[in-house]
């Protein structure tokens, strides 16, 4: 495993990129956790591997995700503030004014022990309630995202400027089809397609073909027959005069300009 006392560079690289089988990775991580030198080198290799994220096609997340995140933390802050404002119990207030001393002090021992146990139980209950509150907040936030997305979708589909185009297969893929809805004012493309599955290293990519200039990617997509028909959505430049839509087969992750065979095409 190691060269002298440390993990070899080759192993660190494979570990950082995630290509090390779990059993081998566990042994290397165990070593690294007790070795400052290997921890530092692993952090550097992880940093380098993380740069591969830049090889992914750049996408913009829907605004609704941020809206839901901020709503989620605001709800949590308000709940915490409300908990902090909760009044103390009369019993607690009374005990603070009680005189000290006397034989009855001994009674405090079992009472205190009982209170400690009760406090522990209450604390545990409080933890469980907090966890349930977190879960509920998460569910509410997710539902808010879905609701906002659904509303935006309906709004886009029903907008008067949204055009609908049917894409037909080429002679090689004559059974394939897709329907595209394009809203030029909002720069949004929605589409659904029925296409055969592809190998893992290939993907379908949707293109807007403008009247002037190079095709514009509307994202990559993978049909999943077992989940039924799926609707894909992509943000594209606004107010583009589109003359056609097309789907090509490209390497996994997509490409900047079409390179693969055309499987669907339709004039706008």
């Amino acid at each position, binding site marked *: 495993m190691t060269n002298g006392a440390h993990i070899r560079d080759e192993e660190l690289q494979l570990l950082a990129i995630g290509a090390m*089988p779990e059993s081998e990775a566990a042994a290397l991580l165990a070593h690294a956790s007790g070795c400052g030198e290997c921890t530092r080198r692993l952090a550097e290799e992880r*940093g380098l591997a993380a740069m591969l*994220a830049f*090889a992914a096609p750049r*996408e913009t997340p829907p605004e609704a995700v941020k809206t839901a995140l901020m709503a989620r933390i605001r709800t949590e802050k308000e709940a915490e503030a409300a908990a902090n404002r909760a009044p103390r119990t009369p019993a607690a207030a009374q005990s603070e004014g009680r005189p000290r001393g006397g034989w009855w002090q001994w009674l405090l021992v079992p009472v205190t022990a009982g209170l400690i146990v009760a406090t522990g139980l209450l604390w545990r209950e409080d933890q469980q309630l907090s966890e349930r509150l977190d879960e509920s907040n998460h569910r509410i936030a997710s539902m808010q995202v879905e609701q906002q997305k659904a509303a935006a979708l309906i709004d886009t589909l029903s907008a008067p400027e949204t055009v609908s185009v049917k894409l037909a297969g080429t002679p090689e893929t004559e059974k394939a089809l897709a329907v595209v809805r394009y809203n030029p004012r909002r720069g949004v493309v929605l589409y659904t397609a029925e296409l055969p599955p592809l190998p893992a290293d290939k993907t379908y990519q949707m293109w807007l073909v403008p009247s002037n200039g190079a095709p514009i990617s509307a994202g990559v997509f993978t049909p999943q027959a077992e989940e039924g028909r799926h609707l894909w959505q992509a943000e594209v430049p606004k107010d583009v005069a589109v003359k056609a839509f097309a789907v090509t087969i490209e390497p996994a992750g997509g490409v900047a300009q079409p390179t693969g065979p055309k499987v669907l095409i339709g004039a706008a």
Partner: protein
Amino acid sequence: MRPESATTELVSDWSLLERIVRKDETALSQLYDRYSGLVYSEAKRILRDAGAAEEILQDLFYQVWRTAEKFDAARGSLAGWLLVAARNRAISKLRRKTGKTEELVENGVRVSGDLESQASQNLLLDKVKAVMGSLPSGQREAVEFAYFEGMSHSEIAEKTGQPLGTVKTRIRTAMETLKQVLS
């Protein structure tokens, strides 16, 4: 946490993180604007599912909000951690595995370049795309299978029909090329 640099006009990640520890929502909003595109793009490339990528994006920044005080600058870069954590979560989801949530302190990630400004992110984007485009197809394929599909070297060897040693060499050579270009 590291003290804020007074020389940069851009608010540093560390400064934003310190404000997040004090529960400043605008700081989280700024951090989200800075890295959400990268995190989302990475998760979506792995999962090829916008909804699942959105879920990872939201959960990751929620974790930053909840546990910002645990992050230690000595262990590396916040941006690097976000990218690694997003990748790990997406791969776990892709492979239907359940993994525990990464603590901010657990995984040190040291990024040599600056990722805080849009300009620096664009520059890195160009460099990484150029490197990936210039790699021989076998090297590019091996790196993509490992990073974006979560395949081990032996799984890649089986899938591509190449000897295990060849797969390891391809990954190593590709990563060395990336290191040279980015250094």
